[in-house]
C-alpha cells in the first residue's frame, strides 16, 4: 500500500518548497526595499537653507558660501558641509551656483580677475553668470533656486546636482 505514503511524501516535499519560498519572499522583499529604498524619488531631499545676511555678499562679487546639508545623519562628519558660489548681481538679484562642475562633478573655482569659473579636472570653464565658456561641460553651472527674506539669502538644496537632477 504505497499510494498514501507516497502522496504524503509528495505533500511534504511541496510543503518544504512552499515554506522556503514564503520565507525567502518575506525576507527578500524587505531586503530589496532596504537596498533600493534610496533610489525611490523623494522630494523631501530638498529644503530651504539659510546662507546668512545678504550683507556678507558684496554686490558685484562672487563668493563661496557654505551650509550644512539639510538631510543628514549624525555620522556624516565633515561631509555634511556643502559649498556653493554666491554671485550678488545687485539689490536682491543673486545667482547661486553649485560648486559641482556640470561635466563630471569636480569642484569649480572662481577667478575674480578673469571672471571665470574653472574646473581642475578636465579644464571646463564657465562665465560669471554660470554659462558654459569652454571645455567638456555640456551645459552651464547648476543653479540653486534662491529667495531673499528679511535681509537673508536662502537657497533650496540638499542633493548632489547632476545632469539628470540639476539641483
Amino acid at each position, binding site marked *: 500500500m504505497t499510494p498514501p505514503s507516497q502522496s504524503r511524501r509528495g505533500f511534504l516535499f511541496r510543503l518544504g518548497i512552499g515554506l522556503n519560498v514564503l520565507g525567502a519572499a518575506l525576507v527578500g522583499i524587505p531586503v530589496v526595499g532596504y*537596498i*533600493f529604498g*534610496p*533610489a*525611490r*524619488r*523623494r522630494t523631501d*531631499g530638498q529644503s530651504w537653507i539659510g546662507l546668512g545676511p545678504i550683507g556678507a555678499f558684496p554686490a558685484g562679487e562672487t563668493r*563661496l558660501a*557654505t551650509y550644512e*546639508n539639510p*538631510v*543628514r*545623519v549624525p*555620522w*556624516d*562628519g*565633515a*561631509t*555634511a*558641509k*556643502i*559649498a556653493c558660489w554666491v554671485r550678488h548681481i545687485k539689490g536682491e538679484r543673486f545667482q547661486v551656483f553649485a*560648486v*559641482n562642475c556640470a*561635466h*563630471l*562633478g*569636480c*569642484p*569649480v*573655482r572662481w*577667478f575674480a*580677475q*578673469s*571672471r*571665470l569659473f*574653472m*574646473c*581642475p*579636472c*578636465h*579644464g571646463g*570653464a564657465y*562665465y560669471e553668470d554660470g554659462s558654459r*565658456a*569652454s*571645455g*567638456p*561641460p*555640456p551645459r552651464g553651472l547648476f543653479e540653486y533656486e534662491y529667495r531673499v527674506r528679511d535681509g537673508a539669502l536662502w537657497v533650496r538644496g*540638499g*542633493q*548632489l546636482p*547632476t*545632469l*539628470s*537632477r540639476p539641483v
Partner: protein
Amino acid sequence: MSARGLGPVRSTLGWLEERAGLGGAIAPALDHPVPRSTASWWYVFGSATLALFVLQVVTGICLALVYVPSAEGAYQSLLYLNFQAPFGWFLRAVHFWGSNAMVAVMTLHMIQVFLWGAHKYPRELTWIVGVFLFLCTLGMAFTGQILRWDQDAYWGLGIGASIASRAPGVGDALVSLLLGGPIIAGRTLSRFFAVHVFLVPGILIGMIGLHIWLVLRIGINEWPMPGRVVTRETYRQRYEEEVHKDGVSFFPYAARKDMVACGVVVLAVVLCAVLFGPFGPHGVPDPTLIDTAPKPDFYFLALYALFALLPPWTETVVILVGPVLAIGALFLVPFIAGTGEKSWKRRPVAVLGVLVIVLTVTTLAGLGVAVPWSPQMEAWTAAATPVRYVKGRTPLELQGALVLQNKQCRTCHSLGGGGGRRGPALDGIATRQTRDQLIRQVLQGGGNMPAYGKNLSPAEVNALVAFMGTLRP
C-alpha cells in the same frame, strides 16, 4: 630529523587524514598531469594573481580591525593606522601596493591567456568567469579608493555619480542608489564599505573557486603550436593523448615556477610598501575645501583622460555605450573565435587588437598623469614672465604683459614653458596671428577659449595685443 623523530607528526597527520580525508581529496588535484609545455614562466600570472588576492584578504582583514567605516571617523582612523597603530602603515601600504599589483598582474594573465588561445574550446567558460573576476577586481579597486575617504574619494564619488546620472531615465535613481541617499555623505561610505568588504570579496572567492575548478577539470592550456588547429571534434582527445604521452604531474614540476612567481610578486609588493609607504589619505573629505584637483588611482587614469578628450557631444553616448560594448566584447571573445588557430603567430588580428588596446590605454593613462588639459590655477601669480619678453619693451607693451598676467591668461597659455597647456603656448604667437586676429580671439574667444570681451577694457585689449605682437622667437 631522523625518521623516528617524524613518527608523532606522521601519526597525527594519519589521524587527521583518516577523519577529514582532505589529503585524499587534494592529492589528485596536485598530481594531475599537465602538458610538459605548460611548466613555463609564461604560465605563472594566474597563480601570482591568486597569491596577491590572498595577500589582499589578509591585509584587508587586519585593516578592518582598526578602520572606522563612518564618514565621521574614517579619515581619523586612517591617520591612526598610518602613524600610531603598530605596523598599521605597513599593512596599509601592502594593501595599496598589493591592489595595484593585483590589477597589473591580472591584466598580464588576461593578455597571456588570450594570446595563447586559452579562451578557445573547451575553455570558454573559464574565460568568462575570468572576465567576471577582472570586473570584480576593478570594482574592488574603485570601492577601495572610496574607503580611503579623502578629497579624492569624495570627488571621485561625484564623478561616479555624474557618470551614473547620464543613464537615460534611470540616472536619477542610479545616483541615489550609488550614494545611498540624495548626496555624498555618511550613508555613502557605509555602502561602499559593505560592498568592498563583504559583497564583492564573497563573489570573488566563489568565482575564484569556480575558475580553478574549471582549470583542473579541463586541464591547463597546452603551449599552442602554429598549425595545430582547435576543432570541437578532435581537441579533447588530442589533449588527453598529449598529457598521457608527455605529461608531468602539476606538483611539483609545473608548480615550482608558480611558487617562485608568487614569492616574487609578494616580495615586490612588500618592497614597494617599505620603500614608498602607504598611499594617502590626502586632504580631509570636507566638501567646502574646493582647492583640490581630484585624481583617480592609476587603473582609472585612462578613463579620466578619456573624459577630458572626448568631444562633448559624443560623451554621453560613449559613457553609456562604451562600457557595454567593451565588456560585451570581452564576454563574446570565446564565441567569436572559439576554435581554429591558437598560436599568436597565426592570429595577427588578435595580436594587433591587444597592441592597440594596450597602447591606447597606456597613452591615455600617460596623458592622465600629465593632464595637459588641466588649467594651471597658480600660474598667474607663480610663473615668472621670461626676461627676454620684457627687455626693451615700450610702456604699452609692458602694460600688456601685466594684463596677460593679471587676467590669468597663463592658466591655460604657457610663456617660456611656464603656465597651462590647455591653450597654445604664446611664445611666437606674433608669427602666427595678425593683430586683428588676436583682438578677435581675445574678445570673442572660440575654439575652446572663453570670450574676454566683457572682461577687458579697450585699453587693456590694446596693451595686451601690443605685448603679444612682440612675442616672436
